[in-house]
């Protein structure tokens, strides 16, 4: 079914200005996300961050894995890659190293990035690969119908935890911090300005950036656990979040409907993988080595 929406003419007709439209592939709208889903809000923030970043959009590529958030790449008017489940980070690694002039963004969900793709998240952070990772965390596997995720808090019911989740969830900012990410932040879809600002900072930062965006899944997580609709979840984010920039990431773990610590937790400098390679080979190989990526910068 296609709604055949012509957003540009709607905009004109009603005298509205939508500053996000130019960043989207308008021929792919409407999107597949449910009413009340938070992913679209994060994409709105990302589009604003792209606009504010001053980057040449021809030099920005977006890579997604599989899942609801994994569909993001397909809606953005950038060079966009919808890869396999869990492997967005490896694909982004190859893309960035093959063409170092690109700004490469990985945009995917919590299950894709921290379960099936968890190994790659750890190692890309360890290497300080120069990519930005946006992890939309809705605490569940949405695309497949609401199964337990490594981020599901202890307690709530999921289709594969029908009597409530008895596992402990990942604290994703702590994981990214411990593995060596140079920028780590968490915001919710209530904090749209802060999230957009974090994404802008992430786009301008060199090195491995990890931004967690908490977002409601009303269809599968909220409804199953009697948490209301998308708006009710955003109210929860508003009421229970506290901003603590620079917080110790060890202390920012999440509990079921409990307090949420948001903020920019980590912002530090460390040589990227490519800088380390170039510096090392220049030192040990001398004249036999030509700095890699230099040719790309001169184009």
């Amino acid at each position, binding site marked *: 079914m296609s709604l055949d929406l012509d957003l540009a003419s709607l905009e004109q007709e009603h005298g509205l200005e939508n500053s996000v439209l130019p960043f989207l592939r308008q021929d792919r709208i409407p999107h597949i996300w449910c009413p009340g889903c938070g992913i679209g809000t994060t994409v709105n923030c990302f589009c604003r961050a792209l606009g504010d970043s001053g980057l040449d959009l021809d030099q920005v590529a977006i*890579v997604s894995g599989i899942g609801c958030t994994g569909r993001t790449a397909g809606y953005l008017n950038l060079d966009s890659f919808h890869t396999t489940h869990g492997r967005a980070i490896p694909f982004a690694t190859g893309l960035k190293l093959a063409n170092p002039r690109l700004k490469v963004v990985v945009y995917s969900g919590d299950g894709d990035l921290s379960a099936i793709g968890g190994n790659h998240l750890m190692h890309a952070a360890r290497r300080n690969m120069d990519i930005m990772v946006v992890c939309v965390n809705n605490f569940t596997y949405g695309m497949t119908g609401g199964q337990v995720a490594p981020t599901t808090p202890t307690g709530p019911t999921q289709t594969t935890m029908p009597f409530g989740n008895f596992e402990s969830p990942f604290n994703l900012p702590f994981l990214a911090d411990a593995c060596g990410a140079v920028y780590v932040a968490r915001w919710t879809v209530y904090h749209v300005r802060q999230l957009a600002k974090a994404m802008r900072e992430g786009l301008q930062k060199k090195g491995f950036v990890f931004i967690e965006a908490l977002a409601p899944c009303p269809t599968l997580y909220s409804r199953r656990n009697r948490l209301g609709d998308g708006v009710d979840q955003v109210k929860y984010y508003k009421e229970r979040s506290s901003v603590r920039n620079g917080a110790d990431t060890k202390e920012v773990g999440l509990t079921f409907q409990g307090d949420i610590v948001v903020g920019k937790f980590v912002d530090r400098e460390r040589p990227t993988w490519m800088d380390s390679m170039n510096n090392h080979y220049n030192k040990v190989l001398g004249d036999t080595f030509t700095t890699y990526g230099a040719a790309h910068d001169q184009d």
Partner: protein
Amino acid sequence: METEAILQADPKGVLTGVHFIDGDHAACEGALAAGCRFVAGYPITPSTEIVERFAYRIPAVGGVFIQMEDELAASMTIQGAVWGGQKVMNVTSGPGLSLMMEHLGYAFITETPCVWVDVQRGGPSTGLPTGPAQADLMQIKWGSHGDFEVIALCPNSPQECFDLMIRAFNLTETWRVPVFLMMDEVVGHMTERVDIPPAAEIEVVERKWTRKSPAEYRAYGTTPEDMVPEMIKAGDGYRVHVTGLTHDDRGYPDLTPAAQDKLVKRLVNKIRLNADRIVDIREDQVEGADVVVVSFGITSRVALAAIEAARALGVKVGSARLVVIWPFPTTRIREIARTAKAFIVPELNMGQIAPEVERAVAGAARVVGLPHAGGTVHEVETILDAIMEAAR
């Protein structure tokens, strides 16, 4: 396809001269000569020497080697690098290849040109890490889910590891399918003379870059005459979308039976309908032969000794060596079956190519399979006995 750009090799990657090196190292030199400047690897016996040499050589040639955290990462990182504009190689052996199967399918559906090297060892599972086998031939043909058509080359010497690696790179750029170099532990580890010609004598097929403007360009636009789409790389301003989902000619997901029919038929037909341009079967005294030995890889060298012994005993025996295993040379084998009485098929597996020969022969001649579980090569006498028995 007919208009593919053929260039001379970049001399920076070509180690011109006479070398005494093993097949793994020769394969690496072939990749460098063909223009490969990016490898993301994960160590696994008996393929590791290929990436070790690449890691050692690439800083001076100019490119990247990165050792990944696992084979899943390696087989996807190389594909990201292709869309960043590089020529790439994926190197592994049995257990690693099994892990990479999903990404083999991703390369087929996204039409990402890349060379895959499998230095075959005994299986299943961890099997015989340091012993040869030729038992992954069906895995590369059928191992990733869904329908696709693979190209696979099978070298029988270090020299061929070099030569066929260059052809593998050229084929992958021409057809935009992953192309396999199916080595085995013996070919990988045997050391022989390898002649590397001057760069000017090495033909390298350039990627099929589009000349269209972003407004005209369709990422997966093809015609019935040219079923291989033109390519771009990220950063060229084309704003392409690439997905593992079934897609239309813009690359956009289209999850309809009609789109599936169009895409999958094109993906298999671009190889099936052009198989005669890809196959490579090397024949010796096949005309008038009563018995023909069909062999490939290291097994072809054992078979040669048996063939010579049989000829010395007065048997009319021919040799048909499959340098290209996939697509299978069905038409030619069927022609040979009009005159030959019997085919002997020695292989280091429990019967993967013999049934293919039977299918091609379609009852017109006897087909005798000589399966071997691997770990070593056939005894010459085993093949000789089979030839003598069939000739009787």
